[in-house]
């Protein structure tokens, strides 16, 4: 039975390689779909819908079929397995890992931010990393990484956000290629008009911070809000401006 199925597949492969008949391709895909599902199932229980995983695996199967060369001497199942597995891993890396911070670091990030707010209040000035490390019990390296996670709202949605499924392609890649087309005078006009579209408070904060050179602390005192809040508004507003400036 298995032998007969293998012979039938070999025959289909040989014919598909020569003729590229769509019906043969469909038959081959249907024949190997259980293999794709097998790999998809291996990645279940990782917070992603199984149906999505099966679709990704199916894409891997299609890619394998398109790239497979029977002359090389490797069995298609072996080749397809590697391709499907690679597609699933890439999916997790691009769609999940890039935008999902490991839970522990996320928690530490919140802890560090809370500790920073407390220390700022106690000390009457912005704390240092060693002080935060001492209060939270984390190493200075971890505190620095946690601080960077806090700015991930600015980061993950800006230049480093992945676009589509192409390897390593990010918004920044598109942004850079678009930007060269824009004359500097247009940019100036765009920035000026965008500043006008901001909420009064956001515009005021940006003006105080970047045009009147006031510190976050001074702005917080002036507006009666926390320095953390000022920091967050600056990051999100800048991100908004960037998106407006470079919608790509």
């Amino acid at each position, binding site marked *: 039975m298995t032998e007969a199925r293998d012979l039938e597949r070999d025959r289909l492969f040989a014919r598909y390689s020569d003729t590229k008949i769509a019906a043969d391709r469909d038959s081959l895909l249907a024949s190997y779909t259980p293999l794709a599902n097998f790999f998809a199932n291996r990645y279940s229980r990782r917070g992603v819908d199984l149906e999505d995983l099966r679709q990704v695996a199916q894409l891997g199967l299609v890619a394998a079929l398109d790239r497979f060369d029977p002359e090389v001497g490797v069995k298609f199942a072996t080749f397809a397995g590697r391709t499907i597995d690679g597609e699933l891993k890439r999916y997790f890396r691009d769609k999940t890992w890039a935008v999902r911070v490991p839970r522990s670091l996320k928690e530490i990030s919140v802890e560090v931010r809370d500790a920073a707010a407390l220390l*700022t209040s106690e000390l009457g000035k912005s704390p240092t990393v060693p002080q935060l490390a001492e209060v939270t019990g984390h190493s200075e390296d971890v505190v620095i990484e946690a601080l960077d996670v806090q700015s991930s709202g600015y980061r993950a949605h800006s230049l480093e956000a992945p676009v589509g499924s192409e390897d390593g392609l990010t918004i*920044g890649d598109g942004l850079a290629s678009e930007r060269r087309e824009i004359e500097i005078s247009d940019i100036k006009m765009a920035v000026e008009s965008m500043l006008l579209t901001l909420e009064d408070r956001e515009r005021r904060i940006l003006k105080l911070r970047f045009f009147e*050179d006031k510190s976050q602390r001074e702005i917080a005192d002036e507006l009666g809000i926390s320095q953390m809040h000022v920091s967050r508004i600056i990051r999100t507003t800048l991100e908004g401006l960037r998106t407006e400036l470079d919608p790509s």
Partner: protein
Amino acid sequence: MTSNSSAGVSSQVDGVVLRFPAKPGYLSLCRVNASTVGSMLGFNLDELDDLRLAVNESVTWLLLGSGSAEGIVELELEGSDGELRLVATRHQAGLTDEPVDDLVGAILGATVDSYATSSSTDRRQMRFAKRASFE
């Protein structure tokens, strides 16, 4: 690396050089390394926040223009006596002139003590210096 009287603060840090592909995915690498050096020099959280913004804008500027996502970026960090100095250079043939726009200029002007840029057809460079306040 030598230490001064302030706990955990170094009067001079060893130079750090990063060399990476000219792609935005490496921005976090730059921010984390700059924050590490800044922290060693005694920067507080406000100053580290500013430093991260400045690094982001500087490296982003390097990545703009023709040949995007190509070439190599070198980031050099060094510091002494509470001052961090950064030199970021993109090496890429056929670079177009990419002026620093007003918003980026305003951000850098507010977040670092001094900055300067230079460009040629095969190299674009941003330098800045930022000092800790020790307040």
